[in-house]
């Protein structure tokens, strides 16, 4: 099939940037979205133009590197990562708009590449359990109820892609932050730092310039890992609990 692409091109963070139109031909429905862009890029290189920069690595939906807003939707029309989106979800003659994640906490680096290091700093603020190497008790010393283990796992699945922020009309990082807090706070191993974790991570999140949550729910619809919206409520509960506890 043949497609028209309108892609956000921006040379550098200072550059203003604009949408540029390209044609790609002979796209096979078996291609992934990124493979379709590869074809475009090979063509651009041979024409002496700069290829479109985009982040990607594993190309199997787990590293969280890839991500672009396709026709206004983070990661495109399917609930998956961009690298796992296949061209069979488009049809011949389509025009596809491709833009970077938009949020002031995720400044554009170049074209479709954005700087997501704000996420790393949110994790650095408390998204861990302090367990120095070598000091661990036997793994079976503390049983973890299966329900808690499953809950922890489901939240730990977050790949840090940032689609939630890109999709949220407020550029809020609540879903991402809640996923990590819930993962660790439900485990007995995470209990000693339960209060400081949520307070510190939420304040780090605010400092990074993410927007507030007005419970819109777009984030969860864009999340390739299906982190549920109630995850945010669970974090809010942890936050209130920690605030009152610390208040005392």
């Amino acid at each position, binding site marked *: 099939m043949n497609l028209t692409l309108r892609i956000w091109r921006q040379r550098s963070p200072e550059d203003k940037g604009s949408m540029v139109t390209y044609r790609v031909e002979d796209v096979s429905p078996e291609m992934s979205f990124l493979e379709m862009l590869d074809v475009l890029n090979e063509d651009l290189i041979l024409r002496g133009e700069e290829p479109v920069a985009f982040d990607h690595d594993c190309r199997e939906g787990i590293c969280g590197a890839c991500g672009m807003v396709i026709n206004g939707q983070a990661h495109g029309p399917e609930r998956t990562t961009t690298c796992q989106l296949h061209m069979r979800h488009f049809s011949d003659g389509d025009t596809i708009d491709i833009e970077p994640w938009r949020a002031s906490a995720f400044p554009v680096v170049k074209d479709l590449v954005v700087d997501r290091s704000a996420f790393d700093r949110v994790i650095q603020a408390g998204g861990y359990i302090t367990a120095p190497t070598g000091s661990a008790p036997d793994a079976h010393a503390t049983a973890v109820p299966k329900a808690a283990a499953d809950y922890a796992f489901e939240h730990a699945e977050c790949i840090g892609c940032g689609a939630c922020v890109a999709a*949220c009309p407020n550029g809020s990082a609540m879903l991402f932050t809640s996923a990590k807090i819930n993962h660790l706070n439900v485990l007995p191993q995470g209990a000693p730092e339960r209060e400081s974790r949520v307070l510190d991570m939420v304040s780090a999140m605010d400092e990074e310039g993410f927007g507030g949550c007005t419970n819109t729910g777009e984030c969860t619809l864009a999340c390739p890992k299906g982190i549920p919206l109630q995850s945010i*409520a669970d974090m809010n509960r942890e*936050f209130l609990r920690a605030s009152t506890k610390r208040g005392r």
Partner: protein
Amino acid sequence: MAGTGVIMLLFLVVHMLGNLKIFFGAAEFNSYAGWLRTIGEPVLHNSWYLWVQRFVLVVCVVLHAITAYQLSRRDRAARPQRYQHRPPARASYATHTMRWGGVILGLFIIWHILDLTTLTVNPLGQAHHPYENVVADFRVWWVNIIYIVAMLALGLHIRHGFWSAAQTIGANNRGRDRSLKVVANVLAVALTAGFIVVPVAVMTGVVS
């Protein structure tokens, strides 16, 4: 936000029930309005309770509006550049209805107070005769429109707002999500309907 919203919500439930007394006739409704002013007696002086309530409500509306404004500003700053391709509205209609619905409600409240509390804009404007004032109101077609539009905005605001408040204060969780949404819908419909029957009743002549 959630706290002020919920306080206002509680007030509205009571207010709606009170309004329904209109179906029992002028005497009963007016005496209910009179009773409102005697709550707390003899501990409180006449109308003191009402003033306390008014104070609380004003504080709530103002705080609610201020936080809504601040939040919206922060949210705009967090997404300074919009997408060229407008995202299809999936869930975000809620945010739009909340913001615009809230503004409509704010304007309505001002109108409503001028209308039925201070009686400034009321077609009849007879002090201590709320029943008659209400009936006079809803004989005018455009007043009906103001009220009905406001009630619909209220319904939408509560439909999302109630669930949203539960989410914000962490009262929601996976098991509860559905029932909360049901309760929100029931509340929204009940309040909207409960308020709307009054103008409708006046229009159709059930209450006169």
